[in-house]
């Protein structure tokens, strides 16, 4: 019995042999990279980054895992490739000189090449073999299959492609074969069915004039893999894929608290403020003081000698600094001392992924305790709400694993919050949700604040008057007409009762969908 158990454990610890790609995020989704010594088919339409991904696989192989590679190009020649990848900081010239990479451009005869009788593509195999031997390659890229088989008949294509896959396995190389997807003959011929091991599809979609690249693993035999479509970006350092799952799991929930910088608000939040590493949403109509709340939080964090990253999507940093000066928050010295850092970018400047990536990179560099996104709704002009939601979810997950407290502000239009679906979407994934609103009290416009929810702590149910003065922010009970100090006291008593009897919700953090 014991033996059986041991055996079972052994099989569980079995790891499918894989070859790390070194591409950020891709190794997480595939839990370890491409199947080792097997061919992987990389599908995608024109311009979605197949060649780049394939080349990065080779270059990372050389630089990170000491595995030389062969790049068989049927499209671009060596000089073109070297030049193209220079802008991606891939130093192909050095690798070529060190015999770590071998690039062979296979000149294909024009499609009207003369044919008489039977033939095969043994010439290619001979050249490939020679190339592999030249650098003792462990990784091979064939780019792209369409160009190779263009001009050779379908019959040849079927049999030779199958033979190529078997042959590559025999050579014990981890291979990536790129191919066009869509209306081209490849998918119509069902070629991906031959590749039993791993098929990855890339996609390039434009919604609202903003293009998003996506990656999906169609199949990966013998291994677990993420099933979703993952957005990825190509920047000067290559490809970064954004997985949700890898970052979501190992969250530790902190019991430490962090002050909001407003004593009255802390009081409303169980007298202690937010949880460290939680996510906070401040939503409200225009001019209700969302940014002021956020700035107050940032100011307090920095004063406590913790770093804060303030991502401003609406106002320029010096405008924020000037405006906050007027309500008693002097942010400038904090910026100078490096405690407060601004990220400022127009939302329409680039797509959502690039924004988050830029912020993510800053987070990695700065290691802030608090990140503020002001306002998150401006990013929503960027793409459909479902997109921003999934992006936000991923971003919040990332921050949570880093134990960073995040505060978003969200501008909503006048009207009830229930009628604002985008806000609803965000509010379900945050831990603490505060709403600031304009209400009318005795024919006077009054700012009000209430805590809509706050996971894991007793919080006040009161709507408080929210006052911004040159000395900062204070919250006080709303005094309605004829209200005397007597009713004030009653209110206070009631509030106290509220606090002490309110049920403590259980601090389980849900992973929003």
């Amino acid at each position, binding site marked *: 019995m014991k033996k059986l158990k041991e055996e079972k454990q052994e099989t569980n610890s079995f790891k499918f042999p894989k070859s790390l790609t070194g591409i950020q995020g891709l190794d997480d989704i595939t839990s370890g990279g491409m199947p080792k010594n097997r061919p992987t088919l990389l599908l995608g339409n024109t311009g979605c980054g197949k060649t780049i991904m394939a080349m990065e696989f080779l270059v990372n192989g050389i630089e990170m895992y000491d595995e030389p590679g062969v790049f068989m190009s049927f499209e671009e020649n060596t000089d073109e490739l070297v030049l193209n990848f220079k802008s991606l900081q891939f130093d192909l010239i050095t690798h070529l000189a060190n015999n770590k990479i071998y690039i062979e451009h296979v000149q294909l005869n024009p499609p009207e090449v003369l*044919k*008489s009788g*039977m*033939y095969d*593509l*043994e010439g290619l195999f*001979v*050249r490939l073999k*020679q190339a592999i031997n030249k650098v003792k390659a462990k990784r091979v890229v064939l780019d792209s299959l369409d160009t190779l088989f263009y001009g050779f008949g379908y019959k040849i294509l079927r049999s030779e492609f199958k033979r190529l896959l078997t042959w590559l396995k025999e050579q014990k190389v981890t291979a990536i074969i790129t191919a066009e997807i869509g209306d081209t003959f490849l998918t119509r011929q069902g070629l991906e069915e031959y590749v039993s091991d791993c098929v990855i599809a890339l996609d390039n979609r434009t919604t609202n004039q903003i293009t998003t690249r996506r990656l999906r693993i169609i199949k990966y035999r013998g291994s677990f893999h993420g099933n979703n479509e993952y957005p990825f970006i190509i920047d000067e350092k290559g490809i970064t894929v954004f997985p949700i799952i890898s970052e979501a799991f190992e969250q530790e929930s902190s019991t430490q608290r962090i002050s909001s910088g407003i004593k009255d608000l802390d009081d409303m939040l169980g007298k202690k403020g937010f949880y460290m590493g939680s996510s906070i949403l401040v939503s409200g109509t225009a001019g209700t003081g969302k940014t002021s709340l956020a700035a107050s939080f940032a100011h307090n964090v920095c004063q406590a000698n913790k770093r804060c990253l303030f991502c401003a999507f609406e106002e320029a940093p010096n405008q924020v600094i000037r405006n906050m000066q007027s309500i008693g928050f002097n942010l400038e010295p904090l910026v100078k001392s490096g405690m407060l850092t601004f990220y400022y970018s127009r939302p329409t400047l680039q797509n959502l992924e690039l924004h988050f990536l830029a912020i993510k990179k800053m987070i990695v560099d700065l290691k802030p305790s608090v990140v503020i996104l002001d306002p998150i709704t401006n990013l929503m002009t960027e793409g459909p709400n479902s997109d921003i939601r999934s992006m936000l979810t991923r971003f919040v997950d990332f921050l949570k694993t880093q134990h960073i407290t995040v505060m978003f502000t969200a501008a909503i239009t006048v009207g009830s919050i229930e009628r604002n679906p985008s806000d609803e979407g965000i509010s379900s994934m945050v831990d603490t949700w505060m709403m600031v609103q304009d209400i009318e009290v005795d024919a006077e416009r009054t700012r009000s604040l209430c805590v809509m929810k706050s996971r894991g702590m007793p919080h006040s149910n009161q709507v408080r008057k929210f006052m911004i003065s040159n000395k900062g922010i204070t919250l006080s009970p709303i005094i309605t007409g004829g209200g005397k100090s007597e009713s004030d006291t009653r209110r206070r008593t009631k509030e106290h009762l509220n606090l002490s009897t309110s049920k403590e919700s259980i601090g389980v953090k849900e992973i929003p969908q």
Partner: protein
Amino acid sequence: MKELTAKSNAEGNEKQKYVFRLFVTGILPNSARAIKNLNTICEQHLKGRYDVEIIDIYQQPSLALTEEIVAVPVLIKKFPLPEVRMIGDLSNNEKVLKELDLI
């Protein structure tokens, strides 16, 4: 005028020497057939004025690179110019003859 040059070319071809290179892979069926077919064609149409070099890319893989060989077998007519490439085992006799300007 055009007819005249065409005619003189054809006349020239009759005396011209042909130089072929045939790339094969060992004695695989396609290659073996290609060698046999080429021999027959040359003996029938170019007797005494042809030169055939058979290259086995298994033996000389570097030549596969320099001559840009992908499909095998492939026949390259080096001379007379222009160079003509034909892939396959040359079993379609008529097509081969036509492309080589022999009929």
